[in-house]
């Protein structure tokens, strides 16, 4: 049912990534990356991880686009022309690495397999006690905001510090 949609979203992601690399205009590349963020959040939403989807949309499609555009406004908007032909060694390396990764795929458990090793460690406890302990109906929210609350809090502090540092370092724009 939704495998078709997931495959379509992932194909769209590949197309978007290729387009972002190939396009010559850097503003175009940034806007394509924003579309990539929206599509990625669709993939997350399709997996049922709604909070991750929304974070991806806000950060990947919203904030980073604005930051990139602000940077481009202060610098050159065009990519410097350069040699674009892939060297044979690079091509061979990429194909080898990709082949190795494809070979390793069949070792993975099936997608959303409840008997996979990663799902048997702490997940059953979260699924069993999560709602009673946290009161959050979405288990992803419960793990992110309650069980990993300190992690999320310190992440917020790090991002706040980085923002303050950027604000202090960047020169004010002359009107």
């Amino acid at each position, binding site marked *: 049912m939704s495998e078709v949609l997931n495959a379509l979203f992932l194909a769209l992601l590949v197309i978007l990534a290729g387009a972002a690399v190939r396009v010559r205009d850097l503003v175009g590349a940034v806007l394509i990356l924003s579309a990539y963020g929206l599509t990625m959040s669709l993939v997350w939403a*399709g997996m049922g991880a709604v909070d991750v989807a929304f974070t991806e949309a806000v950060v990947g*499609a919203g904030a980073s*686009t604005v930051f990139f555009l602000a940077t481009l406004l202060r610098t050159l908007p065009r990519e410097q022309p350069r040699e674009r032909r892939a060297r044979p060694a690079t091509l061979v390396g990429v194909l080898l690495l990709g082949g190795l990764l494809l070979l390793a795929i069949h070792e993975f458990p099936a997608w959303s397999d409840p008997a996979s090793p990663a799902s048997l460690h702490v997940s059953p406890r979260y699924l069993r006690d999560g709602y009673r302990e946290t009161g959050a109906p979405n288990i992803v929210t419960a793990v992110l905001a309650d069980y990993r609350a300190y992690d999320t809090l310190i992440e917020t502090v790090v991002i706040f510090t980085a923002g303050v540092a950027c604000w202090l370092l960047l020169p004010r724009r002359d009107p």
Partner: protein
Amino acid sequence: MTSIFVVVAATATVLTLAYLYRVAAGPTVFDRILGLSGFGTSTTIVLILVGCVYGRLDMFVDIGLGYALLNFVGVLAAARYFERSDRR
């Protein structure tokens, strides 16, 4: 019933390629920004349809509204930046 939603969502996803072409090829920056706005609108529709497929429409409508707002604000921010610069 769900198969209808899957077909419509798949069609809408394929049709976003038209917007994507405008974003990638558009001669001016404004073509690209408008293309991205249309892409965001299609994405919102696909998100709602995914919600229909999963039968969790109430939750996905909330996220869809957030997407739409975010898309609007993003396009406004981009347009504002380019209004301030003298480049087209």
